[in-house]
């Protein structure tokens, strides 16, 4: 008797979201199959995309082998972002680290002006991450949204503590929001429900937090996997959002990645591949060689 492999079909579709404008745009999400289930009925029109991370200040604690590819530009974020493009990125992620009150407490105006300069200088869409300080981010991200009006940037993190103010600014100025919640699917859904009361769900990307290999990656994996399953298989409207895995910073914080280069690349690479398998749609990395490694692994699948 001939064997026929079972083929599943699902009812949920992850919302397809466009980031950036015109030629500088990219699409993420849109899939109606779990990650890499090419054997099921359905498709993933937008395979995972990759961004490299740029800091708005000279990196204070990066190991030599991470600084190395950007040595000539680490004090000039615009040039740094331009250089990222030569490594074949789909997007650039600007981390406004200096605005953190615990770092330099740099002003919102300065950060917003830089974000605009970077966005204009590059030919790919820009992701902007605030420092994560729930109070300062209200000021900083609102300013970024305003100054970059209409550029359709991907801006976050929008947290349960500040979603009203930050979400409103992102919406008013035509951007996409990153809704971030701390590794908990119920809180993730709750934030989406609350945000969606005034913010269109097809302009939300979720960030469930991405822990590094050996530092809780399993939690991120399970969570991303579950969000995708609930969205695609049970059609829960509040989990059918693309997922951003902002993992570079988490990986390069580890002792193992700092210790030596090969170990660092593998640390970031394995974390990226794992979260990709779990269902991440957009991954933010730090080292261009990791990017190359991950892309090569996917292409030789």
């Amino acid at each position, binding site marked *: 008797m001939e064997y026929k492999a079972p083929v599943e079909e699902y009812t949920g579709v992850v919302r397809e979201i466009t980031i950036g404008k015109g030629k500088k745009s990219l699409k993420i999400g849109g899939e109606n199959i779990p990650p890499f289930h090419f054997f099921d009925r359905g498709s993933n029109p937008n395979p995972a995309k990759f961004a490299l991370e740029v800091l708005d200040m000279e990196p204070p604690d990066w190991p030599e082998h991470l600084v190395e590819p950007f040595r000539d530009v680490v004090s000039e974020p615009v040039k740094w972002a331009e250089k990222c493009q030569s490594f074949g990125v789909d997007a650039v992620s600007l981390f406004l680290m200096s605005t953190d009150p615990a770092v330099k407490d740099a002003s919102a105006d300065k950060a917003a002006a830089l974000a605009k300069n970077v966005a204009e200088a590059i030919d790919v869409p820009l992701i902007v991450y605030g420092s994560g300080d729930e109070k300062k981010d209200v000021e900083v991200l609102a300013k970024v949204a305003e100054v970059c009006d209409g550029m359709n940037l991907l801006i976050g993190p929008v947290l349960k503590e500040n979603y009203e103010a930050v979400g409103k600014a992102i919406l008013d100025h035509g951007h996409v929001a990153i809704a971030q919640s701390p590794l908990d699917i119920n*809180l993730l859904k*709750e934030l989406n*429900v609350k945000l969606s009361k005034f913010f269109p769900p097809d302009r939300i990307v979720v960030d469930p937090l991405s822990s590094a290999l050996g530092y809780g990656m399993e939690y991120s994996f399970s969570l991303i996997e579950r969000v995708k399953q609930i969205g695609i298989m049970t059609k829960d409207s*509040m989990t059918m959002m693309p997922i951003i895995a902002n993992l570079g910073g988490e990986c390069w914080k580890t002792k193992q990645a700092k210790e030596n280069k090969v170990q660092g690349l593998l640390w970031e690479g394995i974390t990226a591949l794992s979260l990709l398998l779990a269902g991440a749609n957009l991954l933010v990395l730090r080292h261009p060689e990791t990017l190359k490694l991950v892309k090569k692994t996917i292409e030789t699948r």
Partner: protein
Amino acid sequence: MVIIGENIHIIAKTISTAIRERNAKVIQDLARAQAEAGADYIDLNVGPMKKDPEQTMEWLVKTVQEVTDLPLSIDTMNYIAMEAGLKACRKRPLLNSASGKTDSKQNMLPLAKKYNCEVVISVMTDRGMPPDVNSKVESIMDTVAYANELGIPNEDIWVDPILLPVSTAGEGQRFAVENLEFIKIIGDVLPGVKSIVGLSNTSNGVPEELRPLINRTYLVMLAKNGLYSAIADPLDKELMKLNRGEMPEIVELIHKVMDGEEIDLSSLSQKEVEYVKTAKVLKGETLYSNAWLES
């Protein structure tokens, strides 16, 4: 369904203070209120009782019995306090609770025989909480068989699958679904035994104002599957009305959700919509979040 009033509970600050200071009025008011609200038993949850277990329990039982004739559920892990409580009861009490843990089998379960009372036996074992329905059934069968050997008949045993908070990320809803299943099958597995749950634990971690809705909905769902009794809040009027069958439309709606029937929310009142949404969460059909009513 038999309702065991949960309100005399050591975790409540007023209760722990009242017990420490031997303030009979606070305890008696609460016992009377629960009796008047229609409770069938009064639970006396005194926790581990490190200090004066015998004297304290005896005082508590006597204090409550001065104002109500309802039978009592003596709720402690301390078997010295338990024995003192059982001894002081006028009506046949409920020993709450024993389990499959070795210590409990040796020290707690024999008290049920000695005082000829009814006994709650939970699914816990030395290995902790069984992770799924099958292992819960397995462990309760072992412990019930052990109780039978001690001379305790199935008819005196109330089995407790242990309810856990539905709000626990990832696992909470699975627990809720599995415990519904446990209640559904336990009567066939162990003929004659009764079932009992600590209802309010399901809504632990849920925003305070929404807890009753979870408790009420889950009570109706468990009742459909044959639950015999619940330790619950008899002062929740709506819960008691549901339990007495005075809200048949709501009960019917919840049953429809359980049976997987399509429900047109647009034809329902806000209250009905809330019950439907809650039942879907407890059935594991929609993902729980604190904002489950809003989506």
